[in-house]
Structures are given as C-alpha cells and as structure tokens.
C-alpha cells in the first residue's frame, strides 16, 4: 500500500476585475442625495429601500465612504437650514408647534436615512471615527436649528414664558412642552442644561424672590407656609410632567432658598403668628408644615429648635419664679407636668418625634426647674399629695403613669439629695399618720427611685416601711401578752422607729399625762424585755391621740389631736382654767410648739375646744385658757391634729438647707479623697471637675465648697500642695 500523494489545492482569487468607474461614485451619490431630498419632502414612499441600501453599501465597499458621509452632512445641513427658516417664520404660539412638528419629521427622516446608510454606520464610520448617523442628525439639528441665532433666544424665552404663565395659574400645553424639552434633552452637549435649565432656574429664583417678598408682607406665618408648601409641590409636579427628573432637586433648592431660607428668621419671629404663637396655641398642622419645610434648608431645624428652647426656658422661668404660682406646690408641679405633656405632644405630632427636639425640651426643663431651689421640696409635696389622696380609686396603670411622670421630673433635679431629705420627711408623716392611699404605690415609687439612684438612696426609706410592719407585729405581741392587764386603760398603738432610718427630729421635752403613763411604761418594759440593749425614747412631737370629750351641755365628741395637744387637754380634767405659764410648766412642751398647739385648740372656729382670754389671735404669755363648755360642732369626730406635710416655713427651710449643706461636706471630702488616692497628683481644676462628675447624680457641688474641703484636707494632712506648681495637689498616703 502506498500513501496517497499530497496534493495542494489552491483556490485562485477571483480574477474578474471589478471596474470602479470614478463617475460611478458620483452617480451613486446623486441617487442617494435625491433620496434624502425626497425623504425630507415627504416623498419617501416612492423609494426603494433595497436599492438605496445597496447603493450606499457599494459606495462604502468601493471606498467612497468619505464622499458619502460628506455628502450626507452637506445635504442634511442644507435641508435643516430651510427648516430653520420655516420655524423662524412661525408666528406667536405656532412657533413651538412648528418646531415640534419639524423635529418629529426630522427624526422620522433621520431614521430612514440611518436605515439606508446602515452599512456605512456600521463599518466606515467606526473605522473613520466619525459621528454615527443618528447622532450626526441630532447634532446638525442642534447646530442649525437650536443654535440658530433667530431661534435660540426665542425658544428659550418662549419656554420660560410658558412656565411663568403656568405659575400664574394659566393652563398651558404640557404635551408640547414635554416634547420640546425632551428634544433638548436628547441633543448632545448639555443643550437642555444650557438652553433651558440654567435660565429656568435663574428666572425661577427671581420669580420666587419677588413672590416671597409679596407674601411675607401680607401673610401671617401659617398662611405663608401654606403658600410656600403649595408652590413647592407645584414645582415638583411641573418637573415630573415635562422636565428632566434631575431638575427636581435643583428647582426645589431654588424654591427652598427663596421662599424659606431667606425669610426663615422673619417667619419664626413673626408677631402674633410665629413659632412661639403656634407652640402656645398647639397649632399642630402649622408646626408640622414648618418642620417639614424647614428641614429642607440648612439651619432650618436648628432655628426652630433654638427658638422653641428659649421659649420654653422663658415660660419655665416665669413659672418657677412667679410667687403666685408657687403658693400651692401641688398645683405648681401639676403645671410643670402639663407643660411637659403639651410639648411632648407637639414634638410627637408635629416634629416627627425628632430626638434633637426631645433633647432640647429636656435640657430646657432641667434648666428652669433648677432655677427654683424649692423644686425638690415641691415635687416631694406633689408626690405626698398624690399618695395621700390624689391616687385614691385610680387604676394601677394610671398610678404607674403618674409615678413615672414624677420620676421624669425627679431626673431633672440637680439637687437630688434635697429631694431625698424632703421625701423622707413627708414619707415619715404619711406612714405615721397612716394616711397613705396605697402601700403598693409607695413601694412602686421606692423601686423606681432605687433603679434610678441606686441602693443607698432608698435603703433608709425601705427601713421605714420595715419598721412599720415590725411595729404592727410588736403591737400584736404586746396585746397578746398584756391584754388582760391593760384592757380597761387607754388603747395604745406604738410605732417603734429605728433612729437611723427616720428623719432626724430633735427630741423635745414633754410630760405625758398620768392617765397614759402607765400603759406606756408597760409597753417599754415589754419591748425592752424582748430587745435588750436598746434605748427607747418617746417622740412626743410626732404622735396622735383620740380623746372622748363631754362638754358642758352634755354634748359628746371624739377629738383627734396631736400628742402635745393631748397633754394640754388632759390637764383640764383637773382644772377648768389654766394660765399659759401653768400649762407650760405642767407639760414642759417647748414654747414655739406650745403656742402653735394652743392656737389650734383655742383660736380656730369650729375647733375651739378651749376658750382663751383675751380673745386675741396670738398666744401671749399672760393668756388664760378655759375648757369651752359651749363647744359645738356638727361632726362627732373633730380633727384638730396638725401632722400633715406642708410647705416649710422660712426658718424651717433654712434649717433643712443647712442640714443638706452639712451632709454634703463629707460626701465631697470622700470624693476628693477617692480621686486623689487613685490619681496621686492632680491639679485644682481637674479635681473640681472630677468631684462634680462623681457627685452629679446626687447634687451639683459648689466649687467654692470643694475648695474649702480641699483646704481642710490639706490642714488634716491628707493632701499637700506641690512645692513647685501651687495649683497641683498631692495625695499623702
């Protein structure tokens, strides 16, 4: 077998020479030129697509692409020049219509031409880096029509005039506008921006500048904002109808700047209708509108926030310094809560629950509540009132709501330790008089305080509750053990108070009447029998007594009195009349208290179980007192005791304030020592800052007091000044 010989096959090139007749190109071009003319003259129907395509194809194939292209340009250009003339000639409203029509036609023509010249479009044009047919057509349109001197300005003016007319309320042909503007958008080279958008924005700015000036002169704030909002919405709608969507942001910026930003301050501060008025009158709609408009401009919201803040601080300041409003602490606190609720509602309904506004509200409240040094006392009195009677019959959830509101006010207080002192006093009175509406409510509040301030704040308060409970048990035990012995004597109820937990009261002298001394002693013996090593002292300034009294005409009444008053009245079992001095001697009650008691027993209508001679209002040391046989009251039970928590008198207030200041000194010193122990060496300003930071949850320490405490610690050799830098202190181990 032999391998077949390889045989080369050759394919010979086509040997038939194609003759390219130079005149051939010209002839072909003429055909195409003619076709373009026909197309522009709306005579395209007579043309054969296939033939034209082939001609174009051949021209390109035979390397006459350049000629074809140049010819295209020339032809199209001359047609466009004609078209320009016809557009220029159009009168008035027809101008745009003519332009639009011609544009539509041009596009159709362009499409056809492009189809015919597709081969050139795909081959010659890319390789020669020429503009493709379609784009070329658009550019020629742009250069010959849009940028024609007679058309360019007229077009711009016409468009802007239409916008202006629409703004004044006329209805315009939006479809036409849309087409024209779309035309501008389709053309390359920022035609839309340069020929329409930029002038449009300038003219709009002028328009709104003028309009805003008009509005501001004649409208009140609320109306102005409504108008501004309306204009803004209109512009947004206009853009969506016939402009490039990218213009929306730009025109809204213009409107915002001219209508809102330029007049922001004037609007907010407008007399009788500005922000403050809206706040006072709860105009939620107007406020909401203002918020949503102002949030579009820089510094808009800060402006609202600042004005709101100063307004709240101002009304708050007035509230806490107006002596009228401070007469009734409970009412005062209620007003604070009302103001807070009012503004919370505004922020939630109109200001979108904006956190920065919430913070501004909180800081304002913190500012003015602390302007009045009695705020802690008043808030405690408010709570006292609620827990005493205000929350009677209120559902559990509502109780929680009230207590949470109280806690909110508490958080604003800088001097939380002052509140603690008063709260303790008032709680003590509530517990001892048995006048608390709900034990659960009391405990709930204590828990809240503990969560807020920690265990130390409430441990003593809890101790008070424990004492009350323990006392109940003790009484049960006492009566179980002694029941028989004391059955025919006065009924004694004792609350045993652990000294550290209850507010410090100076114990004063008071001689208990013999009628009860017996049972008191029995209790003392019983108690100390089970609790050796303890000391008991009767707090005569805190007790109450119920006395059954029979008067001259046989009328019987039950008198509910304080212990002091009991001691005084019991004296009258053995004498019809006694002088002030005799009473003083017998009871040994301190003078100020004694006078107060006698006043409540003798000088108050409806409660004057004693008669005083002379009948003056004040108690003098020469006065004489008699049992009032003619006493009358329509109630069987007459309450004369005075153990209710009240606003403190001036001297009492001073005393409490002093005690608070004294309590603060060791706390400050402890903080200084803690800090210096850790840091070893620290300068004065930093110590002050650190101490303030450490104590701020309880009170705001006074820098002068801190300085004095530092000096005291230097004296006691806990600290020393640095030898070189006198502002530096060193911890002495």
């Amino acid at each position: 077998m032999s391998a077949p010989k390889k045989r080369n096959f050759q394919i010979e090139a086509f040997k038939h020479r194609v003759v390219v007749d130079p005149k051939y190109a010209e002839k072909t071009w003429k055909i195409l030129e003619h076709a373009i003319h026909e197309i522009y003259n709306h005579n395209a129907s007579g043309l054969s697509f296939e033939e034209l395509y082939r001609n174009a194809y051949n021209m390109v194939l035979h390397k006459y692409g350049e000629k074809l292209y140049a010819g295209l340009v020339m032809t199209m250009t001359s047609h466009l020049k004609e078209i320009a003339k016809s557009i220029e000639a159009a009168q008035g409203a027809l101008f745009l219509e003519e332009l639009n029509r011609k544009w539509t036609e041009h596009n159709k023509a362009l499409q056809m031409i492009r189809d015919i010249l597709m081969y050139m479009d795909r081959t010659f044009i890319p390789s020669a880096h020429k503009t493709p047919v379609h784009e070329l057509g658009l550019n020629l349109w742009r250069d010959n029509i849009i940028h024609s001197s007679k058309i360019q300005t007229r077009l711009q003016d016409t468009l802007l005039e239409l916008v202006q007319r629409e703004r004044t309320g006329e209805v315009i042909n939006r479809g036409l506008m849309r087409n024209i503007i779309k035309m501008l958008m389709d053309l390359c080279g920022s035609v839309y921006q340069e020929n329409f958008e930029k002038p449009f924005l300038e003219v709009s700015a002028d328009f709104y500048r003028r309009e805003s000036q008009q509005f501001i002169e004649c409208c009140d704030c609320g109306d102005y904002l409504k108008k501004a909002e309306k204009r803004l919405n209109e512009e947004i709608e206009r853009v969506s109808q016939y402009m490039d969507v990218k213009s929306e942001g730009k025109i809204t910026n213009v409107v915002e700047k001219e209508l809102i930003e330029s007049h922001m301050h004037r609007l907010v501060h407008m007399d009788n209708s500005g922000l403050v008025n809206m706040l006072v009158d709860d105009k939620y709609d107007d406020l909401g509108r203002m918020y949503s408009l102002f949030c579009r401009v820089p510094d808009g919201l800060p402006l609202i926030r600042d004005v709101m803040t100063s307004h709240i601080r101002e009304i708050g300041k007035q509230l806490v310094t107006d002596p009228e409003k401070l007469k009734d602490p409970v009412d005062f606190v209620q007003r604070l809560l009302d103001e807070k609720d009012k503004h919370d509602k505004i922020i939630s309904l109109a200001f979108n629950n904006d956190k920065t506004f919430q913070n501004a509200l909180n800081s304002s409240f913190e500012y003015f509540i602390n302007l009045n040094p009695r705020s802690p006392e008043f808030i405690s009195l408010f709570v006292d009132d609620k827990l005493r009677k205000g929350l009677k019959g209120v559902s559990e959830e509502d109780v929680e709501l009230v207590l949470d509101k109280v806690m909110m006010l508490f958080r604003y207080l800088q001097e939380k330790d002052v509140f603690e002192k008063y709260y303790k006093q008032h709680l003590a009175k509530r517990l001892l008089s048995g006048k608390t509406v709900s034990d659960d409510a009391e405990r709930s509040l204590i828990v809240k305080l503990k969560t807020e301030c920690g265990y130390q704040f409430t441990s003593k308060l809890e101790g008070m509750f424990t004492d009350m409970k323990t006392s109940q048990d003790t009484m049960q035990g006492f009566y179980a053990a002694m029941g028989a012995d004391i059955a025919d004597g006065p009924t004694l109820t004792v609350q045993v108070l652990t000294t550290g937990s209850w507010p410090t009261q100076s114990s004063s002298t008071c001689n208990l009447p013999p009628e009860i001394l017996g049972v008191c002693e029995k209790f003392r013996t019983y108690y100390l029998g089970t609790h050796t090593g303890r000391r008991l002292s009767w707090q005569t300034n805190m007790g109450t007594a119920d006395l059954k009294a029979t008067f001259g005409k046989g009328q019987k009444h039950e008198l509910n009195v304080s212990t002091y008053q009991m001691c005084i009245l019991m004296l009258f079992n053995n004498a019809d009349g006694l002088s002030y001095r005799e009473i003083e001697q017998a009871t040994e009650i301190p003078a100020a208290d004694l006078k107060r008691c006698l006043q409540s027993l003798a000088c108050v209508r409806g409660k004057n179980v004693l008669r005083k001679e002379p009948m003056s209002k004040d108690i003098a040391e020469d006065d004489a007192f008699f049992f009032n046989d003619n006493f009358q009251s329509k109630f069987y039970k007459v309450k004369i005791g005075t153990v209710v928590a009240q606003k403190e008198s001036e001297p009492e207030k001073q005393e409490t304030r002093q005690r608070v200041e004294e309590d603060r000194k060791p706390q400050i010193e402890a903080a200084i020592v803690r800090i210096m122990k850790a840091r070893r060496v620290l300068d004065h300003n930093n110590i002050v800052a650190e101490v303030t930071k450490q104590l701020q949850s309880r009170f705001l320490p006074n820098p002068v007091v801190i300085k004095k405490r530092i000096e005291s610690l230097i004296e006691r050799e806990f600290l020393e000044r640095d030898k070189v830098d006198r502002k530096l202190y060193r911890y002495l181990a």
Partner: protein
Amino acid sequence: NKLGRGNRDKVQQLMTITGARPVIGILKERLMYSTTSPMLQHPYADMILADGISLLCNDIQVDPQDIVMLAISWHMKAATMCEFSKQEFVGGLQALGIDSLEKFRERIPFIRSELKDEHKFQEIYNFAFDWAKEKGQKSLALDTAIGMWQLLFAEKEWPLVEHWCQFLQARHNKAISRDTWSQLLEFARTVDPALTNYDAEGAWPYLIDEFVEYLLENGIQKGQLSDWTH
C-alpha cells in the same frame, strides 16, 4: 506673754543664785567653760525665756521687736517664739560662727541683709508660722498672725498688707491655716496689687479669693489701686 508668774519667779531665783544674768551666764558657759558646769543641771538653765531674751537683745543692741530676731530664731531653728532651748541656741550660734558678743553684734547687719534675699525671706516667712503659733495648735491665732504679717511685710514691702489685716478682722476672725499663710506670700509676690493678673482659677486658698472680692467691693478696681484710708 509666755512668761507666767511661776516661771518669772524661777528666773529671779536663778538670777540670785548666779548673781549674773542667766543668758550671759549660759552664753559664757557655752563659750568658755565645759558643759558639765553644775549650773547647767538647773531645769531652767536649758531654756532661755522671755526675760532672758530681752537681756540678750540688750547685749547685742537689737530691739526685741526687731525682725532680725526672727531671722536669728530661724538660724537657731527655734521651735517657738520667745524661747530658745539649749540645743537651739548653741547650734544656732555655731552655725552663725559666733563665739563672742562682739562677733554677735558684728553679724547683725549680715543677718539683716539675709532678709532681703528672696529665697531666704521665703524660708524665714514660712518658718515664722510654726514659730509664732502655740505649741500643739495646728493653726496660728489671728492676732499673732496679723502682728507677724505687719512685721514681715514692713521688711518686704507689700502694699496690700493693711487691707489684708483689716479684711481678716472684719470678715474672718478665725485662726490662720498653714496653707493660707504660705500661699499669702506667693500671692503677695506674684499678684500685682491692682489685681490685674489675679487668676480666679488659680487655686488660691478661699480666704484669698474672699480677700480679692473684698477689695473689689471696696473700690480697688482691677487696674487701679485707689488709696483709701479709714
């Protein structure tokens, strides 16, 4: 006056025993005799008290109120004013290189000049606090402090010294702490009497802050020191 009735008697006794001034006697003892002289066993031979000091002053021709006595006490590291212990006295004289009364007298101008030295003045000033206060007290009684200040600030001029003393008597009326004492010199040295460079944040003792307030209240404007007398 430190010398109580009893002490005075004892010194009298001493004087009659030795028949000489006890100070000079002791001085001579130190300088010329051995330290085991029988006289030195007497309890009060170990202390020079007020009377002895005034005799000493006489001998060295210096007024007992003269501030140079303070400087001398400083050299002697005396613990309390108006008395020198044996150790303090001897040690001080040795440190000063004094071995005769004449030398003592000659040294006085030098010691006086030391008060002009900024650094030494400060030491002497701070020394004065412990020296002038009562033994066992932490603070310096106000009257004594005022007396000392007047003395010291006559030496080193401070225009506000009178105002300071008046302020204390009007507003303070309590003893002076060591810190306040030492800081006052700083204040006098660094703060201009018209208070132009007073820094409220300067960690001055609060008494000095109050003093500045007092001055401002009473018409010493910052920048201008009006001369008010009373």
